[in-house]
């Protein structure tokens, strides 16, 4: 069997592809649910039609996106058993519980109330109907908590003991499992990043219409909302990103060293953060780099004279601890993914800060290029989200569960490379086609803009109820 049919490699590609793809829709679902809930609340409170129009408009974008999040999510759950059965047998007792909680408490809530929200406009009283979208928000955010708690176990396994006889990890304390220091930081970091992605969409969509001087009475408030949402959630994403890196330095020092491609332990000014490096990917020789002294020390320890362990030192430690082997992730991936995550995220926040300044007190920028930047900045946060996941998962390698199980040992032993190749190709094709359809539908709905508000009947004075029909 040649190397193209290596089940391990193919399973990793499939998991990476399907996960990054799934997580294009998740942040939009989480963030737009909140956005729609806020707009609808504003409408219920003020009775101003612009908020109702915005609720329906962003509600439509939310729904086009929602189904994709649901159906690609089922793949994620099935894949653990399909491609990673040895892993599933090993961690199921611990890892399965948060997944089950996610389904029982969060997914049911989300899936039930989203249906009621879509079809309930004419069937529920105003206040109760508003409650359905808020329950959807609660469900979507709770699901993120449980899945990140499960993921945190892979990064920083706690609350378990190893049963040698059964060859598996067993849960010892559910409370500890659900309050993993990694998930306490990664949950808010991820959630606020999800809000950034949605804010990015709102800014881009509003700018598209305002640039064309259309739908100004709805899109102007939408733009302001999106800009504020970006700035606030951007600040919080950064803050919790910092908490996450502190937790990560403790739990997975190798990941932080790999994020910086730092081979040798360094202290104080020498623990510098490189903004940009040109060199050989293996880091053996550096051609050019822009460095900020002390910054890495500060990021890793919150002190200027801290010591940050280097890759080579950690490699030696791990060899002593876990036996001979390569314990280094792919450095060029972690190094660049970390930088792109931070760079794209900050760029998007800057777009929003400048945007707030330019639109202060009813002002509106004239220059075309400013609007173009606002319109085309949408992918920044979304791409930052993807590379952030690539960083955190690739930085965990070669471990599947850090210190307990290597990725190469987690794969299903009985599924052939050909089988996985078939499924990888099938997912790629189906996901590719759906991405095109989805993109076209979203841009079409965006271009159309918000619908006019329903007008009260001339004779009865009653405003017709919205009825949703597929």
């Amino acid at each position: 069997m040649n190397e193209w049919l290596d089940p391990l490699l193919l399973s990793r590609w499939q998991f990476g592809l399907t996960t990054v793809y799934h997580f294009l829709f998740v942040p939009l679902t989480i963030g737009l649910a909140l956005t729609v809930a806020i707009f609808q609340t504003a409408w219920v409170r003020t009775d101003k039609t612009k908020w109702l129009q915005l609720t329906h408009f962003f509600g439509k974008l939310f729904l086009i996106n929602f189904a994709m999040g649901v159906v690609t999510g089922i793949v994620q759950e099935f894949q653990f058993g399909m491609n990673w059965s040895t892993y599933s047998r090993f961690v199921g007792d611990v890892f399965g519980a948060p997944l089950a909680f996610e389904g029982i408490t969060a997914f049911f809530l989300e899936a039930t109330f989203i249906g009621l929200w879509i079809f309930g406009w004419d069937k529920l009283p105003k206040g109760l109907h508003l409650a359905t979208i808020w329950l959807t928000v609660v469900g979507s955010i709770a699901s993120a908590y449980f899945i990140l708690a499960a993921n945190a176990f892979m990064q920083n396994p706690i609350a378990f003991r190893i049963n040698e006889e059964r060859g598996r990890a067993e849960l010892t304390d559910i409370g500890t499992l659900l309050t993993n220091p990694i998930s306490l930081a990664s949950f808010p970091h991820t959630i606020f990043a999800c809000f950034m992605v949605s804010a990015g969409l709102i800014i881009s969509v509003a700018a598209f219409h305002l640039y064309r001087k259309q739908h100004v009475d709805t899109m102007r408030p939408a733009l302001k909302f999106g800009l504020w949402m970006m700035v606030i959630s951007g600040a919080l994403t950064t803050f919790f990103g910092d908490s996450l890196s502190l937790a990560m330095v403790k739990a997975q020092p190798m990941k932080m060293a790999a994020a910086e491609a730092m081979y040798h332990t360094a202290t104080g000014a020498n623990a510098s953060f490189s903004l940009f490096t040109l060199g050989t990917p293996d880091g053996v020789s550096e051609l050019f780099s822009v460095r900020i002294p002390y910054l890495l020390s500060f990021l890793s320890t919150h002190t200027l004279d801290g010591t940050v362990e280097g890759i080579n030192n950690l490699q030696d430690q791990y060899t002593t601890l876990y036996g001979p082997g390569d314990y280094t992730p792919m450095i060029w991936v972690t190094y660049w993914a970390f930088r792109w995550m931070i760079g794209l995220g900050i760029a998007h926040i800057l777009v929003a800060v400048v945007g707030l300044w330019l639109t202060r007190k009813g002002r509106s920028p004239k220059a075309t290029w400013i609007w173009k930047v606002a319109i085309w900045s949408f992918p920044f946060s979304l791409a930052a989200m993807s590379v952030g996941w690539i960083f955190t998962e690739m930085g965990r390698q070669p471990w599947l569960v850090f210190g307990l199980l290597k990725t190469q040992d987690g794969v299903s032993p009985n599924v052939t490379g050909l089988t996985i190749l078939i499924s990888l190709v099938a997912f790629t094709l189906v996901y590719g086609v759906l991405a095109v359809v989805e993109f076209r539908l979203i841009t079409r709905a965006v271009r159309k803009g918000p619908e006019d508000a329903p007008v009260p009947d001339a004779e009865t004075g009653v405003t017709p109820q919205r009825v949703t029909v597929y």
Partner: protein
Amino acid sequence: MELNILWFWIIAVMFIGYFVLDGFDFGVGMSLPFLGKDDTDRRVLINSIGPVWDLNETWVIVAGASLFAAFPEWYATMFSGFYLALLVILLALIVRGVSFEYRHQRPESEWKKWFDGMIVVGSAIPALLWGVAFANVVQGVQLDAGHNYTGTFFDLLNPYALLGGVTTLLLFFTHGVVFVSLKTDGDIRLRARKLATKAGLVTIVVAASFLLWTVLAFGSLFTALFAAAAAVALIGSFLLNLRGSEGWAFTLMAATIGLAVLTLFASLFPDVMPASNDAANSLTIDNASSTPYTLQVMTWTAVIAAPVIFLYQGWTYWVLRKRVSRSSIEAAAL
């Protein structure tokens, strides 16, 4: 009772929830070419399940995650062993799910036709393959000492399993058509009743053969009681549909599916995935389950959450109880 035995039956209940609820979704999807004479008819059908398909499908996510948590070995063996079958199910669920949301985004009939086709195929494939999968679990498959499936995809397509697949396909089809008669109004409601009669006859014959085979080959007295009750419920549903008692016909159809799933689980007990080659390699409730601690945590979660879930899901169906008709669809379009 040991907690792992309790969880064996909780998993059964979750799959009953999934097959009863998504089962009628699949049936409605498959009925598009039979009951949907024109676009308005097809919209009536799709809108009858529009608000609930996602909630119904969530049952399989919850069942799968609970299986993972309560019986990791069972989950790992079944999902890796049935890889290609599950791949096809996943792809079908993907195209079907997005079709509900995408179909109404554009007015062109070419566009709608495309998604109608995907709804039909995306409903029929899981309806067939879930039956094939569960029949194989009951019958037993080749497992090595590490509980890994050693057969091929084509080994799964044996006569008993295929009969199981056709049984679930027909059960879900009839279930969906009866649902249409309960949930719609006008001409389509009457046509659904007639189609339910025809489909019901075929379903009775096929399902009875499958249940009989199950009882004779893998069953016990316990199994026979469930199978007999399933058969009675199915025939009862057929007769009540003839009489036009749509609500009761649907209820008994749901009971039929529930009892059929119980028949399969009762045949399995106390195994969860018997090895056909060597009984020593079989997965049982004892050697496949999680620790008592994990099961205890899960039990508390389920005990607290279940009443709330039943309440709000039941309430949702109550809020959406109004029948869908051509006139309600046409009125909304104005």
